[in-house]
């Protein structure tokens, strides 16, 4: 039983270290990327898995807390992509255009309605 707990603790430490590395890389991505949408890409993915992995690691090291920690993991997994999607749509509709090397933009056609109403409100 004691060795089993020891093994769980080592696995937990591994997850904690891995998660903190991903959190660091996500923050580095937020800092380095050239425009808003790419920052969102780096930030969402890396920070979601990073936080999930840190929380899971703590759960393995402290099995009594596991239920609540799983609730946190599920909540992060559902809420993080939702909030990044809301931010991406909001910033596109407020007029921030992505950075392109070669322009590929299918969404532009859908946005004309929003821009027309903006111009009306300015006049």
């Amino acid at each position, binding site marked *: 039983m004691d060795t089993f707990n020891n093994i769980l603790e080592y696995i937990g430490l591994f997850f904690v270290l891995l998660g903190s590395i991903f959190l660091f890389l996500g923050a580095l991505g937020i800092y380095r990327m050239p425009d808003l949408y790419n920052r969102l*890409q780096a930030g969402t*993915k890396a920070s979601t898995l990073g936080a999930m992995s840190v929380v899971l690691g703590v759960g393995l090291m402290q099995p009594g807390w596991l*239920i609540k920690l799983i609730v946190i993991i599920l909540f992060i997994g559902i809420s993080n992509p939702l909030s990044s999607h809301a931010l*991406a749509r909001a910033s596109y509709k407020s007029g921030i255009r992505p950075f392109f090397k070669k*322009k590929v933009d299918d*969404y532009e056609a859908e946005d004309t309605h929003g821009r027309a109403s903006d111009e009306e409100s300015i006049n």
Partner: protein
Amino acid sequence: MSRKNFSISRYLYTFFIVFLIWYAFTTSLQPAEIITGIILSLVVAYITVVNFDCCDPILIMPSHIIYFIQYFFVFLVALVKANFDVARRVINPKLPINPGIVSFETKLKNNFAKMVLANSITLTPGTLTIDVIGNKFYIHWIDVTTKNKDEIYKEIAEPFEKVLLKIYRSHN
């Protein structure tokens, strides 16, 4: 606000979901917590029942459980791949990116399935769902390799949609 689609069964279903969320967040069986949760859930369910149309209950067959497990593993592999992909791009001093916004059409009809697909796409390598209008998905892609609609669909959505279509086949 019209209360047109109000019905007792919908109200009870909403109450059940809201109370489940309360219980997940408190995880305690003390009478005071349970009673507070029931009262609050009744009030919140009464306010939100007219707007709560995303998650209609579906019939879950025993055979679906295999698909849920399969989806979970497909998703987990994609999530881990996505993270190494982001790490590779961020560490590289030249920032190898070629972003663009592409679109594809989904075969799913159920709103909840569309939400699951959109969230999964956001968490997979190099793609971010910007908007869903009807059955059209608009995706910000960090490294656009093709403009062909079929190849875009195959590249981004196919692994997830294959499994989701099996679960939601009878609800299409």
